[in-house]
C-alpha cells in the first residue's frame, strides 16, 4: 500500500526523525493560510507539493515555491488543477522552503535478491535513484542489514561517511537507523528519503547552523502485514483508490481495474496475469485483473461478477478456472447464480478445468453457458464477443 508524502512524514516523525513542519491543504485558501503561518514563523518561502501517489510530480509541475501568501494561493490552485499521470490532484502539502546546502538520497528497502533489508544511499540526492542506478551505479552505496540482528550502528556510520555526512555523524546515524526502524515498525517494503538534506537553520539568535532534515518521504507498506497495524489502514487514501478495488479488497478478492473491455475472472495471480496477456495477444484489451483466490465458493464468484459488471466498458467476460483447491462445480454454481441476478447481459466465455471440471461442465451445459476447452480458445472467443458487442 502506498501512502501520501504527508502520511509518510508523520510516520517518520513518530519514529523520531527530523522532518520540517508541514500542513496539508485541500483548497487554495487553506494553502494560503498555511503559507501565512510558515512565512510568519520566519520562512523566506514556502514549498507547495501535490499529494499524489505517483512519481514525477516535479516534472509535471506539481512542486512549486511561493514567496508570499497570495502567491501561495495561486500556486496551490494551479497545482490543484493538475492531473498527474491520470490522477487528479486533490490536496497539496505546504511547508517552509528549506535552505539546502547539500542533498543526498537514503532509503531502506526490502531486497528480494539478498533476502535482507538494504540500506541504499547516494551522495546525489533529489534525483530519481533509478536514474542514478542506470547511469552511474558506482554512485550508489548499498549496505545490507544483518538478517537476524538488523542494521548495526557501524553500518549506519559507514553509510554516513560514504555519503559525505561525516560532519553530521550522530544525526546521520540516527536517521539511517531510524529508516530501518520505521520499516520494521510499520512493516514497510520501502522507506525512502529523497532528498535527505543538510539545511541552513537560522536560530532565534540569528545564527545559522547546519543540520540534517528529511525533506521528502516515500513509504510503501506491506499489504500482508496490515492486519497487525490496523491504525495504518486509515492512511489508505480513498481519493486515489478505485472504488471497485476497495470493494474487492473487502470481499477478499484481488482486483485491479484496467482500461479494456474484457472482464476477466481467474483463480490464481499468475494465471490471472496470463489470462490478461492472452486476451491482449488475441487482439483484445483486458478490463481488469481479478484473482478470486484458492477455494473460492459460489458467493465469492457472484461478488466477483458484480465487480466486473460494475465497469460500464466491459462488454465481454472471460472466466478461467483451473481447479486445484478451487472446485470447478462451486464456481459453475456461482456463475449460474450470478447470471440470474446480474444487472446487464454481457457475453461470457467460461473455461473450467481441473478439480470437479466434469461436474462443472454438466452444470454449465444445462445452464447454456458458452464454454471453451483451452485458454487460448477462451481468449479468442471472448475477444470475438467483445468486438461483436462494440460493433
Amino acid at each position, binding site marked *: 500500500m502506498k501512502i501520501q508524502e504527508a502520511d509518510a512524514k508523520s510516520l517518520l516523525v513518530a519514529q523520531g526523525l527530523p522532518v520540517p513542519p508541514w500542513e496539508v491543504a485541500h483548497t487554495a485558501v487553506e494553502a494560503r493560510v498555511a503559507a501565512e503561518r510558515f512565512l510568519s514563523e520566519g520562512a523566506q518561502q514556502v514549498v507547495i507539493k501535490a499529494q499524489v501517489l505517483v512519481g514525477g510530480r516535479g516534472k509535471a509541475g506539481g512542486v512549486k515555491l511561493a514567496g508570499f501568501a497570495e502567491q501561495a494561493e495561486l500556486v496551490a490552485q494551479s497545482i490543484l488543477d493538475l492531473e498527474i499521470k491520470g490522477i487528479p490532484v486533490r490536496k497539496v502539502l505546504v511547508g517552509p522552503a528549506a535552505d539546502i546546502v547539500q542533498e543526498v538520497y537514503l532509503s531502506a528497502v526490502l531486497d*528480494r535478491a539478498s533476502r535482507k533489508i538494504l540500506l541504499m544511499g547516494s551522495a546525489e540526492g533529489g534525483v530519481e535513484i533509478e536514474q542514478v542506478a542506470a547511469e552511474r551505479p558506482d554512485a550508489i552505496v548499498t549496505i545490507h542489514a544483518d538478517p537476524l540482528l538488523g542494521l548495526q550502528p557501524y553500518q549506519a556510520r559507514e553509510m554516513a561517511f560514504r555519503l559525505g555526512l561525516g560532519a553530521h555523524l550522530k544525526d546521520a546515524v540516527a536517521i539511517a537507523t531510524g529508516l530501518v526502524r520505521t520499516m520494521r515498525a510499520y512493516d514497510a517494503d520501502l522507506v525512502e528519503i529523497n532528498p535527505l538534506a543538510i539545511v541552513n537553520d537560522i536560530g532565534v539568535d540569528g545564527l545559522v547552523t547546519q543540520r540534517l532534515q528529511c525533506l521528502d518521504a516515500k513509504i510503501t507498506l*506491506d499489504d500482508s502485514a496490515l492486519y*497487525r497495524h490496523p491504525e495504518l489502514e486509515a492512511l489508505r487514501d480513498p481519493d486515489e483508490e478505485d472504488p471497485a478495488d476497495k470493494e474487492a479488497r473487502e470481499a477478499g478478492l484481488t482486483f485491479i481495474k484496467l482500461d479494456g473491455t474484457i472482464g476477466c475472472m481467474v483463480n490464481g495471480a*499468475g494465471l490471472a496475469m496470463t489470462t490478461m496477456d492472452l486476451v491482449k495477444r488475441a487482439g483484445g484489451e483486458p478490463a481488469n485483473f481479478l484473482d478470486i483466490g484458492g477455494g473460492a465458493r459460489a458467493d465469492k464468484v457472484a461478488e466477483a461478477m458484480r465487480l466486473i459488471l460494475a465497469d460500464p466498458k466491459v462488454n465481454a467476460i472471460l472466466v478461467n478456472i483451473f481447479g486445484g483447491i478451487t472446485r470447478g462445480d462451486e464456481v459453475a454454481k456461482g456463475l449460474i447464480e450470478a447470471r440470474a441476478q446480474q444487472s446487464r447481459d454481457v457475453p461470457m466465455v467460461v473455461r473450467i*478445468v481441473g478439480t470437479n471440471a466434469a461436474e462443472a461442465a454438466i452444470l454449465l451445459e444445462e445452464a447454456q453457458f458458452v464454454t471453451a476447452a483451452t485458454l487460448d480458445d477462451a481468449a479468442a472467443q471472448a475477444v470475438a464477443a467483445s468486438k461483436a458487442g462494440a460493433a
Partner: protein
Amino acid sequence: MSILIDKKSRVVVHGLTGREGSFHGAAMLEYGTKVVAGMTPGKGGQTALDGKIPVFDTVEDAVRETGADTSCIFVPAAGAPDAVMEAAAAGVKTIFCITEGIPALDMIPVVALVQSAGARLIGPNCPGATSPGRAKVGIIPGSIHREGRVGVVSRSGTLTYEAVQAMSDAGIGQSTCVGIGGDPVIGTTFFDILQLFAADSETDAIVLIGEIGGAAEETAAAWAAEHLRDVPKVAFIAGRTAPEGKRMGHAGAIISGGAGTAASKVAALEIAGFRVAASPTELPQLLRDAGYRG
C-alpha cells in the same frame, strides 16, 4: 532421482488436523506420498486422516517417532514463520511452506536461520512440489502430472497447473514440478532449483515459469546460460500486460521503477538460450523445438 521429494520422503504435515491440512494431507497420501505424521500443538497423541496418521505436539516429537524429513506447512500466516523455524530446528531437511500472506519482513530471519541449519525452505506462498509417480507435497493436483524427465519450476500456482497439464496432454512427463512461491522473500529461488535440476540424472529439460517483479528470472537465466548450455529449456513469463506499480495478486509480482518487467525477463531468458512461449499451451512444442525427445 527427481529433486526435493521422492518415494522415500517422509512428510510431517503441520496443521494436519485443520481444514486445509486434512484435505491436502489426504490427497498427498492418496497420491502415494509417505505422510508419516501430523503436527498440531495440543493434539499430540491423537490421530488424523481416519486414524491412519499420528499427530504430535512438536516437530521434534514427530521427527523422533516417525523419522520425518520433510515438512508441509499449512498453519496461518501469523504462526507460519515459527513453524518453519521449528521444522528446521528439529532437523527436517526440506520444508514446504504453503501458507500465503506472511509479512515479508518476518521471513528475512527465517530464511537466514533455515540456511544456517542446513535445511531447505520452499515458499512461502507456494503450491509445493510433485515428483510424478513418486510423491507430492503441497496442493498441486496430482491428476495433472505425467511421469517423465522435464523439470518444471514456477513462481505461480494455477498457472503452473496450466503449463503442466499442457505438457502432460502433449505426452511430455515431468521429473519434478516445483512451485517456489510468489512472495518477495522466499527460501528457494529459480537459481537454486535450476542447480538441483542440473545435478539430477533424471531431468533432461527445463521449463521455467516466471512472472513480473524482481530479478530472479534474470539471475537464473544468467546461470543457465553457462551451466545448462546443452539442456533444452523453455520458459513462460506472465504479466506482459500488467501495469507498473500495482501488485498483481502475488506480493512479489510488481513492476517498480521500471524494473521487473516481463520484457526484461523475456529478453534475459532468450539471451540465455531459453525459448520463451507466448502462451502456456506453446510450451510442449517449444520443448520439441529445443530438441527435447522425451
